[in-house]
């Protein structure tokens, strides 16, 4: 095993957590990500294979789906992002590629992104200061790609009082600053 020590998107050795008022903002670095894009005309094959082999039924437009330890959310026509714990599935993309073969293009995306899970009462007050997404009417288990703090982000509603915001990793600090500022503003 290699000896290289990872750092989190915010540059720490361990993920950062901030509590401001009722809001908790947690840096999440323990999830592997892989994009799956069906090859031409292969969308049904991809759905079938993932359903058969890992029990994951790929979600439709705007939605997410879970089949522990995997989750998936829709990112574009015939495209999804699949997540799984990094600890056990660091090579998620390779695993999926083995499963899917020539039916899909699979790309490792784990470190392309930073993720903050924002939780607590007042969640919607916070996100309506960051994004034009209609967060108050977003159901649990839906995901939307939009902008926040001048960044392209995914907002993934994990639960009534929990939203994951997934943004380009290099801008983690700016996004985090925006989350903190909005949290202070509503605290």
């Amino acid at each position, binding site marked *: *095993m*290699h*000896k*290289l*020590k*990872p*750092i*989190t998107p915010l*540059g720490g050795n361990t993920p950062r957590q901030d509590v401001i008022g009722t809001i908790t903002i947690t840096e999440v*670095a323990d999830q592997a990500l892989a*994009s799956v*894009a*069906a*090859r*031409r005309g292969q969308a049904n094959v991809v759905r079938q294979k993932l359903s058969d082999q890992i029990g994951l039924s790929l979600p439709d437009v705007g939605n997410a789906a879970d089949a522990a330890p995997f989750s998936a959310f829709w990112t574009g026509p015939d*495209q999804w992002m699949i997540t799984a714990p990094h600890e056990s599935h660091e*090579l998620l993309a390779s695993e999926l590629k083995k499963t899917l073969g*020539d039916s899909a*293009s699979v*790309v*490792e*995306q*784990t*470190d*392309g*992104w930073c993720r903050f899970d924002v939780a607590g009462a007042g969640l919607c007050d916070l996100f*309506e*200061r*960051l*994004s*034009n*997404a*209609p967060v*108050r*009417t977003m159901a649990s288990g839906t995901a939307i790609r939009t902008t926040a*703090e*001048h*960044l392209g982000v995914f907002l993934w509603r994990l639960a009534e009082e929990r939203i994951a915001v997934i943004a*380009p*990793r*290099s*801008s*983690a*600090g*700016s*996004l985090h*600053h*925006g989350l903190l*500022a*909005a949290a*202070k*503003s509503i*605290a």
Partner: protein
Amino acid sequence: MTNGNRLKGGLVDRNTSLNFRFDGNNYSGYQGDTLASALLANGVRLMGRSFKYHRPRGVLTAGSEEPNALVELRSGGRQEPNTRATVAELYDGLDANSQNRWPSLERDFMAINDRFSNFLTAGFYYKTFMWPKAFWEKLYEPIIRRAAGLGSLTGEHDPDLYDKGFLHCDLLVIGAGPAGLAAALTAGRAGAQVILAEEDFHMGGRLIAESGALADISGTDWVAQIQAELSGMGNVRLMPRTTVFGAYDHGIYGAVERNADHLAAPAEGKPRQTLWRIYSKRALIATGAIERPIAFENNDRPGIMLAGAVRAYVNRWASTPAQSVVVFANNDDAHQTARDLMAQEVEVPAIIDTRPDAPDVEGTEVLKGAEIVNTSGRLGLTSVQVRVSKGYTRDLHCEALAMSGGWNPNLGLTCHQRGRPVWNTDIHAFVPGEGLPVGQTVAGAAKGELTTDAALQGGAAAAVSALADLGITATQADLPAAQDAPVSLSPFWHVKDAKRAWLDFQNDVTVKDVKLAHQENFTSVEHLKRYTTLGMATDQGKTSNVGALAVMAELTGKSIPETGTTIFRPPYTPVAMGALAGRAVGKEFHPTRLTPSHKWAEEQGAVFVEVGNWLRAQWFPRKGETHWRQSVDREVLQTRNSVGVCDVTTLGKIDVQGADAAAFLNMMYANGFAKLPVGKVRYGLMLREDGVAYDDGTAARLAEDHFVVTTTTANAVLVYRNMEFVRQCLCPDMDVQLISTTEAWAQYAVAGPNSRKLLQKIVDPEFDISNEAFPFMACGEITVCGGLRARLFRISFSGELAYEIAVPTRYGDAMMRALMEAGEEFDVVPYGTEALGVMRIEKGHAAGNELNGTTTALNLGLGRMVSTKKDCIGNVLSRRDGMNAADALALVGLKPVNAKDTLPAGGHLMNMTGPIDAANDQGYVTSAAYSPILNTSIALGFVKGGFDRKGEQLRLVNPLEGQEIMVEIVSAHFVDPEGEKLRA
């Protein structure tokens, strides 16, 4: 000072006394006061000076339409000029100053303008100040500029925070007067998502300003009841202190919420204001009406106010402008002002009504068919001169005058798109016409229905109908009985033969100015406004436009609607720039992108530079180095002599997969990619469809159906967008999938003769990276440091034996440290963008300065790369004659004839003889650097026909900085022109 003009009752909290200062004097008021109401209560009528003539002015209105009472509020970085005293909420310690006067509000030197008003008519400046020619800019204009403007900015940075956000609703109700409250109540009870926005800090509109709006309950009490019910509804959001300022496309409204303007300063971490973008399915304009003045001689003295405003001060704020108030009107509505004043025992010497048939009012005399012909009082009204009948005038002593020429629907937001108001002959005012923004309706006084009853009923009905459009069934809320007296008004715009009768108070536009505009053929409304500056002041002519139009109509002999109409532009009232900028200020203006080695580079003391949104290490100073050149030269030399490492993560990376991936890249790049073997990298040039080069990079073939493309840092987003365009729109039948992986991989260039040796210590031993096994332009998926997945590319930007190695970003920091540690024995150096730039210039590689969006493959010396054997973006149009001239610009190297000269990028090139001017321009220098290897300054540049001019000498001219340097045209490949090092 005492609150001598404070009356009984009102919505001020007499238990909370607040101290404040105006122009250095101390006063006190109550919670619930505005600055204007508190000043009036303290007997202060003089609050400002007009823009042009510096006339003494008092408050005219009780709302955001105020043209006169503008002050500088707060001080230092928080000083806000032109704050309307009528909407500034009083807080303890408020400090305000009058503006546009010197040395004091009472004695204003510039009031001399008023004496010369005969010379300063509308447009006078277009006709003079032209002689002698130089005097305009040297003398006249500086004087005019100094005199211009109202309040001032201190220039200090605004210390407050601003927030921004987005709201969604079924129904946005704008205005919480009777119409708005009835609508919100109706929609709220129906379960719709409702936002009720009110610019005032107190909901209720005229309901809290009038004494008898409702029959069986006080307006204030009813408002409190309804507000309580609405606050209890989860589906209704009440937003007081929120001005909806603009109606934008598709039901989007801009609004600004003043979170902390009623406090001395916002609390720590809290915003002063919040800008909201409201996405509404339907919107209801319930913004009420604005009263209009009457133009007569000297109608602008402090103490002369709108009648409805006087009622608001009396009823809501329990302050009267004076103890003796005359009323002047053309309608019944203003008579209520007299009643309300008398009920509070304020003397009303008379009501002057222009209508011969005006009704009587108990307790005062009504002078019917009379008009005011002049007023007195330099700093405040002392009397009015009334023409009671022809040839007979009478002086009335008073300290305030409440005037009313009728009411104009407040229809600004209906005009922000294409809506043009239409004239309504019942109320003699413009009402909203056709072409309202989609989804918008209007109710109440804003629609021209001026009674309280009509507002309540109309508001509720409008809500029912708006929700019906959305499939939501609502029933009209039960509403109280209300005042429903019909509007009784006889149009009266101005008293004839006045010398100076003001229409636009702030900008000092009088009836005479309109006459002059007419005389000079500025008769269209647009010309009138521009020529006289009517309606151009901070109130956008809310109280003046219609009156001026009426005067123009008289002059042209046309009706008012034939003469024109007035429209308004966003914002409805002026909006603080801070709110429009939100959080995106200072360092947060744009997101900052950090590279994987950023933390490590910081530890090394690197100097960083902005490259787009990225921060990259520019160079790494070492102890003892005092000039950046020392660091950069060292980094270059050490890399060329041994080995250096540079973070190149910022280059765009796009993963291209699919059965047609190779065919797709063939379309994207000017050169061919179909035959690139797996395990190899190729340099590629991308053209725009117009044949101009715009990006270059590499594509590595990892499998038959899998490429990784790199782009320049600057163009990563653009190239990806273009690729998606080609994929989806031009080649829809290809099997290709794209995704950006720029951020997923930390990528380092390892360059220099010892780079292989260094990497051999990092790359796991099962991967042979010897020259034979892994030659120039090879690539492969490998592992490093004992099993970490990585990608290795043998490519070189520096011209040295070099590699780029990529690992998952989270390990980028550790990888950098590992490379440094492994390289210790070779004296490895990290190098920054500056050394990178020097080495690429030495090698003659084009970069952003050369790929400037106007240069072609031919210009860059890459003409042969553009394949004629296949289709690709840009190949057809690159063949146009004008882009293939014999003397086309050619990328060449330049070196100084005198090795000590420094070549400036941006210099132009001239032949050795002949004039130095644009006609003789031979080209320009794109990039320049000091080459520590060659011990001289070198440059790249474009020279006309330059490929055939090697060895020729030119003059590099830089007249901007007074330079002229002799240079020689050389090959752009200053180092290793044969590329032996690359392949070593």
